[in-house]
């Protein structure tokens, strides 16, 4: 059989393959463009709001809620968690070192740089993870990612960064871009029997009510964490917030600080670059 005859089916198969998988370069991750589009979406949806006000979540969406929040902020119920965090942060480990030795600038006013991409391990490192790694490096038992100790510690560190603009960096490393994309995919993927994604509530629905609660905008949602929720009667960590969101859509949560959650926090924090840290936040 002449060679040409052989080539024809090959070419056809190749063409077909191309059709089915469009060239991957078509939508290579472009975080800068994503962030711009993200902010433009919210600025057009809520023209009266200044960008930095989005960090106040539901309180930027409703006057009645905002007044209740401002009353609480005069003497916030998270006062005790904040003080506990401050005290824990300064209490030395058994080996005499403290958290200050693990963090740049002794851990003060650095929350806005988390999560960051650790190029040695090729993975995203969140504040909660860094705190537990610090404990581990100093021979201390790890804290649960959803209990009070981690909540108080992260509350104190967030407090020392209040007002500083979120400052998440994506190094020019394909693994960082991949983590960013993985976080974005998680954010937009529908899950659970209710078939919601994070975007279903926090992109399409901010300002609208879910029974008594008003949905917070995704823009700036990370800036207020950790949050003291009246619902929980206590300070809750970012991990606890993500896990609770999952179970509310009837999706089985993953383990705290799984890659998906770390990448999600990386993506979502990057979207809020430039907006001020307002944690620890008080929320319904």
């Amino acid at each position, binding site marked *: 059989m002449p060679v040409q005859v052989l080539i024809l089916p090959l070419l056809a198969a190749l063409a077909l393959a191309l059709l089915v998988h469009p060239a991957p370069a078509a939508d290579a991750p472009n975080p800068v463009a994503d962030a711009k589009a993200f902010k433009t979406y919210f600025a057009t949806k809520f023209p009266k709001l200044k960008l930095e006000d989005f960090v106040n979540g539901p309180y930027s969406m409703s006057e*009645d809620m905002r007044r209740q929040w401002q009353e609480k902020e005069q*003497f916030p119920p998270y006062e005790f968690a*904040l003080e506990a965090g401050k005290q824990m942060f300064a209490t030395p480990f058994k080996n005499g070192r403290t958290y200050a030795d693990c963090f740049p600038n002794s851990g003060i006013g650095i929350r806005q740089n988390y999560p960051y991409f650790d190029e040695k391990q090729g993975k995203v490192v969140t504040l909660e993870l860094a705190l537990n790694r610090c404990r581990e490096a100093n021979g201390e038992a790890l804290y649960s990612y959803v209990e009070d100790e981690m909540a108080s510690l992260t509350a104190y560190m967030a407090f020392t960064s209040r007002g500083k603009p979120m400052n998440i960096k994506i190094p020019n490393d394909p693994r960082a871009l991949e983590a960013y994309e993985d976080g974005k995919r998680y954010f937009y993927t529908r899950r659970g029997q209710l078939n919601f994604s994070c975007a279903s509530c926090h992109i399409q629905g901010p300002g609208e009510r*879910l*029974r008594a609660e008003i949905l917070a905008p995704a823009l700036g949602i990370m800036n207020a964490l950790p949050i003291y929720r009246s*619902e929980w009667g206590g300070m809750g960590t970012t991990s606890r917030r993500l896990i609770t969101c999952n179970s509310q859509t009837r999706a089985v949560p993953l383990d705290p600080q799984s890659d998906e959650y770390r990448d999600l926090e990386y993506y979502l924090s990057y979207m809020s670059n430039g907006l001020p840290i307002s944690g620890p936040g008080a929320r319904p």
Partner: protein
Amino acid sequence: MTAKNLPLTRRLILQGIGSAALIGFGDLPALAAANDKYPQEAFKQKSDADAIKSLYGKTAEASDKVKLDAPEIAENGAVVPVSVTTTLTAVTSISFFVSENPSALAASYLIFEGTVPSVANRLKMQKTSNVTAIVEAGGKLYSATKEVKVTVGGCGG
């Protein structure tokens, strides 16, 4: 809370932490139980009317001199900011009632000579209910009532 007054909150809170440091442990002889015994009975009453009768032994009349401030929809039934202020004079007591709570009387305050007749506090509400503030002034009772909506938050599930 825009970025510019955020540091204000930080100062307020740090001030709070500072002033707490002045701790006095020396316990003076047990504070005389003032002239008010804890109104156990009033707190047991189910309805507003019974609680008011038990607490004050008389009924109240609505008055626009009693300014009650409460949210239209509570962000969370566990922490509902409610406050009252009044232009009435010779005020001796202020109380708050949540009619749909298991027992209506939530809190009662004695106002002394020289104390401003105005109180702010945070109450729990089981469900949507009328919130009533009662001010005892010159031996008479004046009231203001407002409905506060309360529902379970979140998508449940």
